[in-house]
């Protein structure tokens, strides 16, 4: 168990040029978090989390601030000693190892680049700390900087680099030590929105190329959606759902997940009847809809329906149907190719998302209908904690 985590091959050596990107890299390492619990005094920050990250996969830890995602990441990194639970890499526990011996590379939210060292010195730091021969250090620093397309900036101090460039150097520094696991702690939080998407793609590309297993902590659902192979949505120290981003979006496990990942319109109602595999639900806003749900509900049970903005559509105020309900359009905003409608139905506020055709409709009375193709999530009403 002395050296459980070093990659057998010198990945960087094989990818000296950006052209050598293409084929998927060797299989990475598997990371397991097993029943991890962390407490700060009385408060439980992480409450018995068990998660697995498959080799070469990016897992996003997504959740609001204070949900325990960063604590979990720091536990994996070895900065925090958990009260209970184990961290395993390739099945071997690493809890007894200090951060530097875990084979974990970290990109910090602030990047934590050493301000008194040049980009190259920053990248070389971990290699020198491992006592690698000088020639190898030089070669690998060059390769790592090339991999993040920062070859021309080796001599610059972090202060002379832009935020995006700093992030690339931080990534190169983390990758240069050939980590088994790459931890990314809100790596895009300090960047302009416009830069983010480019860098997200870039990091994903590099991660793929190195085949490194990665954990990404973020509170930004878009970031998690675009980066992660799977995401774990956390709340109050617990994991509410772990799934591929599309699954999380389409089939949220809880109302919280439905609300946190993507926008969710919450409609309360009661199960009127069971119709085969589907349920007929009488919504409080005054409509009756037929829905499929994997969950079982009793007739008469109060339920909560979480509909995505694209699950709903505007109808003419005069077109009364049972599955639509009356509402008032307050405003429509064009958002690129789409239109976002802000609608109120009684006390319920709704957001609708439609493709834009011509002029936006004028504010006033409308009806809102659930699209027949839509598969909104249905929860027992009590779940809405």
């Amino acid at each position, binding site marked *: 168990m002395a050296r459980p985590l070093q990659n057998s091959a010198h990945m960087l050596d094989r990818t000296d040029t950006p052209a050598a990107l293409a084929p998927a890299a060797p299989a990475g390492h598997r990371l397991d978090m097993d029943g991890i619990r962390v407490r700060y005094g009385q408060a439980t920050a992480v409450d018995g989390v068990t998660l697995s990250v498959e080799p070469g996969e990016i897992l996003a830890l997504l959740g609001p601030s204070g949900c325990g995602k960063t604590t979990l990441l720091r536990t994996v*990194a*070895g*900065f925090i000693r958990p009260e209970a639970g184990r961290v395993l890499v390739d099945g071997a526990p690493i809890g007894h190892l*200090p*951060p*530097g*011996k*875990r084979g*974990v*590379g*970290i990109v*910090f*939210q*602030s990047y*934590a680049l*050493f*301000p*008194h060292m040049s980009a190259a010195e920053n990248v070389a*730091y*971990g290699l020198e*700390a*491992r006592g690698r021969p000088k020639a190898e250090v030089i070669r690998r620093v060059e390769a790592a900087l090339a991999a993040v397309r920062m070859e021309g900036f080796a001599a610059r101090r972090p202060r002379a680099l832009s935020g995006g460039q700093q992030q690339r150097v931080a990534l190169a*520094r983390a990758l240069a*030590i050939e980590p088994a696991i790459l931890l990314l702690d809100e790596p895009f939080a300090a960047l302009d929105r416009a830069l983010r998407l480019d860098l997200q793609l870039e990091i994903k590309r590099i991660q793929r190329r190195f085949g490194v297993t990665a954990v990404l902590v973020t509170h930004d659902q878009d970031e998690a959606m675009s980066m992660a192979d799977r995401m774990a949505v956390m709340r109050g120290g617990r994991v509410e759902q772990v799934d591929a981003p599309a699954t999380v979006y389409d089939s949220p496990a809880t109302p919280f997940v439905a609300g946190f990942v993507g926008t969710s319109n919450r409609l309360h109602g009661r199960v009127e009847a069971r119709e085969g595999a589907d349920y007929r639900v009488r919504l409080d806003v005054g409509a009756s809809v037929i829905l499929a749900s994997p969950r079982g509900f009793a007739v008469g049970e109060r339920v909560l329906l979480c509909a995505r903005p694209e699950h709903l559509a505007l109808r003419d105020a005069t077109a009364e149907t049972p599955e639509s309900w009356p509402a008032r359009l307050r405003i429509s905003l064009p958002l690129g190719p789409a239109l976002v409608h802000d609608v109120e139905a009684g006390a319920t506020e709704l957001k609708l998302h439609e493709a834009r055709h011509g002029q936006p409709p004028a504010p006033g009375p409308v009806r809102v209908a659930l699209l027949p193709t839509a598969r909104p999530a249905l929860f027992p009403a009590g779940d809405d904690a």
Partner: protein
Amino acid sequence: MHRLAPADRPLALLILALAVIALLVLVGPVLIVLLTSFTTSQALRFPPPGLTLRWYAELFDPVRSAQIHKAAGNSLLVAFCTAVLSTAMATGAALAIARSRAGWARLAEGAFLAPLVLPGIAFGLAALMFFSWLRQPPSFALLVMGHAMIAAPFALRTVGASAAGLDPALLESSASLGASPWRTFRRVVLPLIMPGVASGGFLAFISSLDNVPVSLFLSSAETDMLPIRLWGMMETSLDVRVAAASGVLVAVAFLLLLLMDRAVGLVRRMAG
């Protein structure tokens, strides 16, 4: 001050006037000492009847001022050891305090700074009483420790300010990259807090060099200290070499200050 409204001018003028007075008060006495050191008179006298460099010549005369040179050597050595020792201890304490958010850190910081408010004369007497009780005759080591007690709080203040500005993520980053604590300290922490350490060391050095009360009790025949020797010379004979020595001290300290300022922005740091 171009954007001042007319109504603000009297207040601005008042502030400016007081600031000018403050500069005069700060610099005036030092100028008087420097001017006095060039006097042609036989004793310390202001205003000097004429100007000459003879007291500097006499001060540097290896025979006639041998005792001053020896005392200066002692003082410089003690001040150097004091600066190194107190700054090293203060750096450790400052890092510990900066890294801990716990309540004890605040308390400890207060305790560490306590010697600042202790009258030196009382501490000198107490230290001598204590060491005699332990049957330890005054020695170089005790003298340095005594000075270090007075100097450490000065160092702690400046190093503490630097250490507080140290991003903890840098330390974690270094640890996660596989660096040992010692390597992290040497390669990351020390370079980053170096300006604070240098400023703290400078302050500790100066405070030791100028210390009278502790030296009075803890120095011995072998550790004749410069300020005490100058004190005796001034009191009994108004020896002008005292002013010349002071002139040299100010010049050397000032030079050192400028050099260190160039290197680490010392002047700016001392304000932090």
